[in-house]
C-alpha cells in the first residue's frame, strides 16, 4: 500500500491523448463518408428455362391438366398501363387482378404452385407494371411465371 502510493506520486503517468484523438477522428470521418443507407431489396425468384424448339404450340399430348392463366397487359403510347385482361375479363386495377387470381387459385397452395401464369405485354410498357403483375401473382403464391417472347 505504501509502495504504490509513493510510486504514483513521484511520476504521474500522463497519457498523451492528442495522437489518439487525431486517429480516431480520421477513422470516424472515413467511416462517415463511406456510409451509405442501403434500402432493402426484395426479389422474385423465377426459373425460366429456355423454351425447347417445337414445343411452343401446345398439342393435345402436352396440354397439362391445369390451363395457364394468361394475363394480358396493354399500354398507352407513353408506356403507362392501359388495361389488364385475364382471359376475357377486363380488370380495373392491379388490386382487382390480385383479387381475381385469389379467386382462381383459392387457398390451395398445391394448386398455386402448379398453376402457370403467362404475362403478355407490349414492349414499350413500363417494367414497373410487369413487376406489379408479378407482385399480384406472388401474393397468391403463384410460382410459375412465364413471359411472352419479345416482339410478340
Amino acid at each position, binding site marked *: 500500500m505504501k509502495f504504490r502510493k509513493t510510486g504514483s506520486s513521484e511520476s504521474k503517468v500522463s497519457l498523451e491523448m492528442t495522437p489518439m484523438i487525431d486517429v480516431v477522428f480520421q477513422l470516424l470521418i472515413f467511416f462517415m463518408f463511406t456510409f451509405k443507407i442501403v434500402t432493402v431489396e*426484395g426479389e422474385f425468384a423465377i426459373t425460366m428455362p429456355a423454351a425447347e424448339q417445337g414445343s411452343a404450340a401446345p398439342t393435345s399430348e402436352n396440354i397439362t391438366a391445369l390451363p395457364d392463366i394468361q394475363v394480358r397487359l396493354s399500354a398507352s403510347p407513353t408506356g403507362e398501363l392501359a388495361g389488364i385482361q385475364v382471359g376475357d375479363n377486363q380488370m380495373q386495377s392491379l388490386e382487382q387482378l390480385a383479387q381475381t387470381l385469389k379467386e382462381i387459385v383459392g387457398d390451395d397452395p398445391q394448386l398455386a404452385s402448379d398453376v402457370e401464369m403467362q404475362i403478355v405485354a407490349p414492349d414499350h410498357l*413500363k*417494367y414497373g407494371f*410487369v*413487376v406489379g403483375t408479378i407482385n399480384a401473382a406472388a401474393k397468391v403464391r403463384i410460382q410459375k411465371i412465364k413471359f411472352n417472347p419479345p416482339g410478340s
Partner: protein
Amino acid sequence: MKLRKSHSTSEDAVLDMTPMIDMTFQLIAFFMFTLNFSNDLLDERVRLPLADSATPTTQSPQSPIYINMSRDGMVYLLGGESADPQADASTIRRHLAVEAQLAKVNMKVAGVDPTAGLWTTIVIRADDNAPYGSVQKVIQIAQQTGFTKFWLRATKSQ
C-alpha cells in the same frame, strides 16, 4: 496578459476527454458495422419498381450476375460500358456467353453436371420505367446462353 496568466495558474483547465472518446468510439463502431462492401455491383442510378410482396431472401444467390438496366433500357456492363439489348444484343450476348462458359467450368470443377442447367443466378435490377421489351430481350439472351435462374429485384418501399 497578467490577468490571464494568473487565471491559468490558479486553476488548471482540465478537459475531461473520457466522455468524448467514449462517444467517438461508439460512432466509429456504428459506422464500421454498417459499412458493407457487398453492394458494389448495385447501380444507384436504377430506381427499382415497388412491390410489397418482394421479400428479401435470406440466402445469397449462387454466383450471381447482376444486370442493371437504366430507365431508357440500357444495360450497364462492367467497365462503364452500356449496351441497348434491342439494338446491340451481340455485346450482351458476348458478355453472358463468357460468364456461361466460366460457370460451366466452375460446375465441372465442383462436380456438378452443367447440362441440368447453370447454377448461376441472373439478378435483374431494372428501373421502374425501363421498357418491358428490353427486360424481356435480356432474359431471352440469358436463356439462350444457358441461364435458367432469374431474380427480379424490387423494393418494398422507397
